């Protein structure tokens, strides 16, 4: 377990999983050209779940979560997000995207806009929120990720950890019901990983539905209610973190865990 988690006692009072389905993926297949990247994916995510997706490089983790907000298109099967099915219908896609927040490995902040403008852009142009109100909301979330003093700087002037927290705040400003994280800490120096994980933990404590692709197994053990292990485009094993780490079933999972945990 990573050190970052050791000093933190989670407040679990709001971390409840409801029966309501947030994401329903059934029998989904995806190809890149002729390469079958996702194979027969079945996954149901209930509201309030915190799911960590793990697996070796190239196993299709990113592709899977990018299908959930249609950054990638699936060719077979069904993906229903918050009751909206993802098809080529642009209206549905926009609806899903404005309700699903996404945090990327490389932050992808808009370098030509200030932090505040990064945060208010989508609320103003997509949600049609008045500018003043959008700025108030933005400052609220900047306070939450503990960098309100950076509001008028440009992304290039911030450290990696700060940029990633801004990226999280930017997604939150759209008041999403689901958050997707694609290796949010992989591009960060070790001392910055903690500040980003702390932000994610706070989010989990508030009951946010989260899907995280991450190699932070400490985070998985402390926060996740379910760990999904993927290999070669398939879901190989899923379990609660305790059993996943202490009692893995498949050989692939065992091999992966022995490599990543170093025993």
């Amino acid at each position, binding site marked *: 377990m990573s050190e970052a988690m050791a000093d933190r006692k989670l407040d679990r009072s709001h971390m409840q999983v409801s029966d309501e389905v947030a994401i329903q993926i059934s029998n989904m297949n995806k190809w890149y050209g002729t390469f079958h990247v996702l194979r027969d994916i079945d996954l149901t995510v209930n509201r309030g779940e915190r799911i960590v997706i793990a697996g070796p490089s190239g196993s299709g983790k990113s592709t899977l979560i990018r299908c959930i907000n249609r950054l990638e298109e699936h060719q077979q099967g069904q993906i229903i997000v918050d009751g909206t099915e993802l098809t080529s219908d642009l209206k549905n896609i926009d609806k899903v*995207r404005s309700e699903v927040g*996404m945090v990327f490995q490389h932050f*992808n902040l808009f*370098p030509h806009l200030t932090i505040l403008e990064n945060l208010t*852009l989508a609320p103003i142009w997509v949600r049609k929120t008045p500018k003043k109100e959008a700025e108030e909301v933005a400052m609220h979330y900047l306070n939450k990720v503990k960098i309100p003093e950076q509001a008028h700087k440009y992304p290039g*002037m911030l450290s990696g950890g700060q940029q990633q927290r801004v990226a999280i705040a*930017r997604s939150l400003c759209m008041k999403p019901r689901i958050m997707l994280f694609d290796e949010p800490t992989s591009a960060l120096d070790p001392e910055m990983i903690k500040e980003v994980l702390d932000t994610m933990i706070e989010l989990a404590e508030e009951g946010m539905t989260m899907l995280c692709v991450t190699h932070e197994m400490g985070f998985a053990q402390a926060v996740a209610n379910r760990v999904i292990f993927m290999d070669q485009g398939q879901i190989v094993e899923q379990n609660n973190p305790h059993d996943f780490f202490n009692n893995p079933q498949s050989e692939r999972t065992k091999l992966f865990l022995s490599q990543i945990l170093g025993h």
Partner: protein
Amino acid sequence: MSDTHSNTAAYVRDTMIPQKAPPTGQVGAVRWLTENLFSGPVNTILTLLGVAAVYFLFVHLGPWFQNSIWNANSLAECREILDGASGACWGVIKDRWHQLLFGFYPQYTDPAIISALTGVDLATAKGWGDASVEAEKGFGVVFRYWRPSLTFILMVAALVPVLFDAIPRKALWFSAAFPFLAFWLLWGGSIWFPVFAMMGFAVGYIAFIALQRISSLAATVGAVLAPVIWWFFLAEPIGDAVASAIPISLVPIQSHDFGGFMISIIIGVTGIALSLPIGILLALGRQSDMPLVKWICVGFIEFIRGVPLITLLFTASLLLNYFLPPGTNFDIVLRVIIMVTLFAAAYMAEVIRGGFAALPRGQYEAADALGLDYWKSQRLILLPQVLKISIPGIVNTFIGLFKDTTLVVFIGILDPIGLSSAIRADSNWNGIFMELYAFIALCFFIFCFGMSRYSQYLEGKLKTDHH
């Protein structure tokens, strides 16, 4: 935690070294010279060759500049004054600069008004060297060519808010209205023609707003159709009616009277202003998912880039006449502007495509993930960054376009180069070359260097990665 501070450390520094001055020979002029000019045998030889070239230029051009003659009415007079020595005869510029600027644009020549405005009484003036004549030949030109002069001043005023964002944004309304105003001032005729042309855009906007409630497709179609209907069917009868009720007009002036830097600036500035948006649309079209749009854009860009500008200009001046219905009076300057704009737009599209290629994939994804639609993510996220990356290439295209306007001389438009021949055709100035070309080159240089400096200023201003 390591134990650096415990007693077991093998070495601990207890005093810090203060900053010292660098050794002599490593600072100042000597260092700069040895590092930059004489750092090795090749560099030394190049330095000496460079010095020799500068010396050679100076020896030959120095006297020519030093013996400059400003007050002369003909080349013969210059030669007389110079008496065999080498020297520049700038008298031609002084005598004809108004022509180099405005071509054969009709002058406003009421002597009473001119002398009232300039304070010069031409009846008592004696000739070159007389202060009043100098003044009349000098800023009097501004009044005699008041229409193009005023247009130029207004153009500067219209450009300032576009170029510098410290100017209140409301000033952009003037910039938007300027093209119509400039058209009226330069070509003359009834003021209602440009006014009603301008109203077409307002009509389009109103149609867009009104139809937006129905659907965005209807709004787009309406925004295109309404102005077309306005321009082709409504503007003329209504315009004529208003014109006969309230006649405000200027003496109409034909395009073939236009010339000099005025024509270069008209073609250049219009081309620059239009080629950027068209280039952006072409670049977007080239990346489009819709095959038809994509093929049209690729075909257009590759065709235009594959032919020399001069062939397009000849097409504009000669060939179009065969295709247009007989009797149509399609202004030659307008045709040239269209060709020059299309030519520059094709290059612009490729410059901008390069900017798109340089933009990280993550920017598209972040914009998509936030739910921005295609046009919003282009306008708010992608294009601002793409244009910023592409500034050097864009300005390069602008400068190229502006200099290429000199090619219009081949289809009989009297740009500055064309006028230099026209001036030589006068027996007074027959045989004068260098001075005219030097003046024309200097003017072009000022414009192009100005654009280059502005682009550097803009790049610096838009830098956001560190402060």
